[in-house]
């Protein structure tokens, strides 16, 4: 694997390999000395054209725990005032000898352009491109689901001995919220499908992309309906961007209250989930909008754990991109 651009590109075997590697990485994080020498001498650049402190810190922690040298490059610029072009930035990074570039960009496809245009030769890891993909987010979500639900006490994954080496066959995953603008949703739909899970998208019709009929998913337009119709093992609440409901002629739903009424997760709805089900959120949360404090802070919530799993999954991804091939020989 040279790049990690989209979960669409991952085969089942590749995805399981990343998740298994992440398990090993997570295990090392319980040791007294958590740093591994694996990527010593490698340079990893965090190239962020968009603010995202959480994602950047997660990648930085992952790279540092693998002993790589990390350079943070914040090239913030909106689509209007572009500033330095992606091409010039890439040429600069190439000249500085970056072995891998972790890129977050406002434009869908930016990671592809960086990887395919010939501007640079290092590995490219997509840390979120526009409304397209955010593969490590989907991998950490799958990792979290597998850990809790495969080889568990109850539920459809209970017959498995262990999460390791297995996919998510038998699980039903609900994704609730803005699918249209969500790279998290796109990444999850392809990865979860590849891993054998059934995906239910719960979204207002205004926030479902035209063309979704080709996706291997069920689409329902209300959280109550979803809870009635499906035994959901993992319920993922997507973040609602406040600008999507800014009112006027372009708003995607009438009001925050109405969204919460139809799509928000509160304690009552949470209690309708099967006993083993988990509640997830990629963060940052809008408490009181898509999820109430009761749900977010409940025992079923694995939201904080998703963050720590994120570091392990990103360690695995960086390791497999930069050292994996040599080791695999």
């Amino acid at each position, binding site marked *: 694997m040279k790049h990690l651009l989209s979960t*669409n590109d991952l085969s089942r075997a590749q995805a399981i390999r990343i998740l298994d590697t992440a398990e090993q990485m997570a295990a090392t994080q319980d040791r007294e000395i958590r740093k591994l020498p694996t990527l010593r001498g490698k340079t990893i650049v965090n190239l962020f054209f968009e603010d995202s402190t959480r994602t950047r810190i997660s990648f930085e922690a992952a790279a540092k725990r693998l002993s790589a040298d990390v350079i943070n490059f914040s090239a913030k610029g909106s*689509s209007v005032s*572009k500033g330095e*072009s*992606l*091409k010039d930035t890439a040429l600069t990074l190439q000249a500085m000898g970056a072995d891998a570039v972790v890129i977050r*960009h*406002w*434009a*869908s*496809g*930016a990671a*592809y*352009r960086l990887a*395919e*245009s010939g501007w640079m030769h290092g590995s490219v890891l997509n840390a979120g*491109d*526009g*409304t*397209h*993909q955010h593969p490590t987010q989907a991998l950490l979500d799958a990792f979290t689901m597998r850990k809790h639900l495969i080889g568990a006490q109850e539920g459809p994954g209970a017959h498995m001995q262990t999460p390791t080496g297995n996919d998510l066959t038998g699980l039903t995953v609900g994704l609730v919220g803005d699918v249209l603008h969500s*790279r998290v949703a*796109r990444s999850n739909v392809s990865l979860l499908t590849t891993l054998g899970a059934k995906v239910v998208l719960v979204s207002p019709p205004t926030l479902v*992309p*035209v*063309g*979704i*009929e*080709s*996706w291997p998913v069920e689409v329902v337009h209300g959280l109550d309906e979803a809870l009635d119709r499906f035994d959901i093992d993992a319920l993922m609440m997507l973040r609602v961007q406040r600008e999507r409901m800014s009112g006027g*002629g*372009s708003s995607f739903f009438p009001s925050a209250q109405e969204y919460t009424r139809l799509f928000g997760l509160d304690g009552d709805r949470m209690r309708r989930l099967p006993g083993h089900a988990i509640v997830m959120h990629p963060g940052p949360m809008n408490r009181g909008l898509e999820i109430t404090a009761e749900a977010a802070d409940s025992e079923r919530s694995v939201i904080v754990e998703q963050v720590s799993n994120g570091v392990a999954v990103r360690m695995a991804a960086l390791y497999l991109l930069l050292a994996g091939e040599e080791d695999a020989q």
Partner: protein
Amino acid sequence: MSASQPAAVPTSATPTHGAIVIENVLLLGERAAHIVLDNGTIALVRDADTPLTDAEIPAGAARIDGTGLVALPGLVDLHTHLREPGREDAETIESGSRSASRGGFVAIHAMANTTPTADTAGVVEQVWSRGREIGLVDVYPVGAVTVGLKGEQLSEMGAMAMSKARVRVFSDDGKCVHDPVVMRRALEYVKTFDGVVAQHSQDPRLTEGSQMHEGVVSAELGLTGWPAVAEESIVARDILLAKHVGSRVHVCHVSTAGSVKILRWAKEQGINVTAEAMPHHLLLTDENVRGYDPLFKVNPPLRTQEDVDAVREGLADGTIDIVATDHAPHSDEDKDCEWGAAAMGMIGLETALGIVQKVMVDTGRMTWADVAYRMSYLPARIGRVEGTHGLGIEEGVAANITLVDPNAAWTVKASATASRSNNSPFGGIELPGRAVATILRGRPTYLDSRFEGLFA
């Protein structure tokens, strides 16, 4: 009304040149003939069965062996962007003219979205006279419908119509005249000088931030969609407006199956509407966008295979009247970047004919006579330059001829163009044929290397 206008023929700019004899060429692809061009006009057209006598061959005439070649009346493009004035880094009137002549065109209509906008008699006369000075093709400026393409206030179309440039086609192309009242007034007003409004059909509200066709591929790629309905709703509205006020409207770059259906209905009603299809909408689909290569970013966007099939069918049955290029040069900086930051548009003057042959002629959808009709005869009439172009290959008319070699297959190389820009999405595609000679009023403006030395 147009009879009172001055002639648009810039004959005085044509330098002197010798006579040309084209022997054994397939006239419109139908029958073998000999053609003699002398003094800028077609002096003789004769079945190839009867050889030319010495007396019929003018002294010193250059002789072209037309065996295997197809002779078409010189091609006319109703939709070209030349970028001058304002963006001479991307294209000049000279480089665009050269590219046009290489593609087999003898006349092009230069769109109004330059800097400054071609919304005054001064700008259109400047473009017209520069085109004439270069003399490779007849450059007909298109005038803006509204001041600065803002869609608010009508530009002084009358002044442009009465200027030396004799503008008949008005368009805010690149932008849609979206306000229905402004569009109505424009349609009414152009009747004054038998003009036409060429509409870029795109509802602006339905396409805010749009990046590609809205459908299965955009859903996956996470690019903001440009829905077909944003085109079709404007096409339908404009057709009804044209009917209501008794004017004529021309629909630029038809890209959707729905637009073709609406046009078919309008023509059945006898409404005065014409429409054009672009080579890229005949050949490429939104599947080409998957690699996020901005060379495939164009407005209106590449649609689905179903749309492509409908546009081909519409062109074949005459629902779509003509092929135009929408040649839209952009500098490397505006294309060698991420998709969201890239400019929309692609060059196409030199590939148009080959694509039409590949998609329409070699597949049996059209004959070469149809190509002549849809790329010369009709565009000249829609643009109201039929006194000068789209004349056919007959004795006594101006010698505007494009020779096509339908068996000269070639692989498109994006950088091998006379255009100053090389933003062609067709690089690497094989086309079955191309123009090998372009003749404007008896003078060769483009000659393939095979004719080297012939005109020494």
